[in-house]
């Protein structure tokens, strides 16, 4: 049901015009002008455009073209609220993709839910996003799952016993770090230190000196975005701390490789995209993204692209009626996208999909392994 949304005359998609040839509008927002994170915003926006372009090249959905209604949220929750209102009441979109971080996504979700419209969040990690209601889905697995998978890999595959965590002091680092810690400890490893670092900080030498000389871990887990992850890696190596380093999807970016340079060799990350996947969808996305933008695709872009795939698939199956779309997505199973096989959605709207382990070899991310154990990759329901 659509909650108690105010009755608006032009309630989107409410009355489906039969066999319309009008383009299908899909709303989208990402942080573009915000200085803080605009590289991710650009990846997301590029991929959104690419997704629309590719579907239109293929003739649209059921004969109807797709049109993107895209906004810049400036990484500002206040603006996100306005955008959500505009998308739901003025723009005539049938569904929304969030290509933004947790803050804007989190405040937009209840508004979109109340308007009875579907939103798929591409990569926001905040656990509360999907709690806004049954119309809100997360394209990727939640942070808890990724942290758990990381711990599983670190302890079981790499045999780590004494692990140091360095996590960014945001929802991203907290979600991943805490769940990693819990699962690693449950599996008998010891978390020998847990340092939170501010997003504004990029100097970790003091922490790393401490790790090297006092804590002496046998693995470092870094739950950071690419810039910080690169710094952790670089500074560890420069200080001569040569233990394995496990990163997260936050490091899944060409920018990580660029900044860390040679020091990145051998670093593992958990992420949702497998660049070595032979699957055609994956390779086509990578190829077309490079062609269109002359940039390397990353996890943020791939996740955004896939959020659109989920919507496209739903529309293809049931048309643009929001309730039907919601039900179609909720019941989707084994839907293969750039970020792997979407096994199913939980009742809270979180995706169940394998967690990829990638490793840096010769300056590129490559397939190293995959966590598919359903006990680990299924989010709490």
């Amino acid at each position, binding site marked *: 049901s659509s909650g*108690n949304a*105010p009755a*608006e005359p032009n309630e989107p998609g409410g009355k489906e015009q039969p066999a319309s040839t009008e383009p299908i509008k899909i709303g989208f927002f990402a942080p*573009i*002008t915000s200085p803080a994170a605009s590289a991710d915003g650009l990846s997301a926006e590029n991929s959104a455009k690419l997704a629309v372009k590719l579907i239109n090249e293929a003739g649209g959905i059921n004969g109807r073209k797709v049109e993107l209604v895209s*906004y*810049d949220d*400036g*990484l*500002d*929750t*206040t*603006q996100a*609220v*306005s955008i959500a*209102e*505009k998308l*739901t*009441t*003025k723009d005539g979109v049938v569904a929304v993709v969030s290509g933004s971080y*947790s*803050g804007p996504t*989190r*405040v937009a979700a*209840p508004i979109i839910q109340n308007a009875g419209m579907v939103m798929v969040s591409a990569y926001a990690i*905040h*656990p*509360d996003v999907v709690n806004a209601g049954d119309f809100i889905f997360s394209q990727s697995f939640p942070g808890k799952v990724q942290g758990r998978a990381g711990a599983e890999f670190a302890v079981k595959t790499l045999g780590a016993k004494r692990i140091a965590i360095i996590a960014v*002091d*945001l*929802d991203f*680092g*907290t*979600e991943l770090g805490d769940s990693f810690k819990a699962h690693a400890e449950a599996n008998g490893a010891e978390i020998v230190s847990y340092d*939170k670092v*501010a997003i504004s900080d990029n100097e970790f030498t003091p922490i790393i000196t401490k790790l090297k000389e006092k804590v002496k871990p046998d693995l470092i887990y870094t739950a950071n975005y690419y810039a910080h992850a690169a710094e952790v890696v670089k500074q560890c190596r420069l200080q001569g701390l040569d233990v394995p380093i496990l990163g997260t999807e936050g490091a899944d970016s060409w920018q990580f490789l660029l900044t860390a340079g040679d020091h990145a060799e051998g670093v593992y990350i958990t992420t949702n995209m497998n660049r070595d996947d032979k699957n055609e969808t994956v390779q086509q996305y990578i190829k077309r993204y490079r062609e269109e933008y002359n940039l390397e695709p990353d996890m943020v872009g791939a996740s955004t692209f896939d959020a659109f795939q989920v919507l496209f698939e739903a529309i293809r199956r049931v048309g643009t009626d929001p309730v039907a779309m919601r039900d179609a997505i909720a019941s989707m199973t084994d839907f293969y996208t750039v970020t792997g096989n979407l096994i199913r959605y939980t009742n809270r709207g979180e995706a169940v999909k394998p967690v990829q382990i990638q490793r840096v070899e010769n300056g590129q991310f490559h397939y190293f392994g995959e966590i598919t154990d359903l006990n680990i990759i299924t989010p709490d329901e």
Partner: protein
Amino acid sequence: MGNYLITVAVNIAVFSLLALSLNIIIGYAGQSMMGHAAFFGIGAYTAAILTNKGVNFWLALLVALVISGTLGAIIGVISLRLRDDFLAITTIGINFVLVAMFQNMKLFGGSLGMAVKPLILFGKRATAIHFLIILLILILLVCMLIRKMNRSWFGLALASLRGDEGAAQSFGVNTSQYKILAFIIGTSIAGLTGGIYAHRMTFIFSSSFAFVVSISILSMVVVGGVGTIRGPLVGAILLGAAPELLRFADDYRMILYGGVIVLMMRFQPQGLLGENSFVMNKIEKYIIPLLKRKGGESNA
């Protein structure tokens, strides 16, 4: 009015209150307050924590007002010891430290932010329009308050203190007392606004109260016109709506925003509607005589 417009109006209304209240400290009392958003945040978190615990919304607002006002009083006391630019930076510092606390302490939801129990009014969940009404009433009240202040000895005390502390003391103004009072009034209104904002957003993050927000509030006051009532209102309307108004500029949005502020300061540092500004001079020259001729009387 569509929901979208109401939402934008709510944002503007929130900023109007913040700008009006900051103007009491900066424009009337002449104190360099650069961390106004921190008090906005204190109010927001206080009210949110309380209503989440089941306290009545209005009571929570009152407590938010009192707590932020109390903290404002502390800043006021600190301000007595510091010169102008030191005070500016100290308040920036307080903004950072408080945001760091919001970000780190479990009490404030830590880095995950804090969900706020939606406001129920008359048995129904409050929507944007309800908040707009509450905010508009408050704006009206605050404007009346400031107007009253300007005509009272209180206003004259602030003007004296702003003009020359030595002189003010020489005719009996306890400048310390009035500085502190100005801080209390300004910050408690900010706190009250924060409490409303939190319930409007139903979710608050530390970043909504960061230094950049203080700077945008400050910009509104200065762009509109310091030391007037109309100034902060117009500043809040223009800059508050700017993110939406400038959507046409797309990628150049922030550049336009920054550029407009720079140009404003360069050519109209007294603000758009400040005393002696281009617009006000034109109004005085053309519009006021017109009104006088037509209306017969006009208030000075």
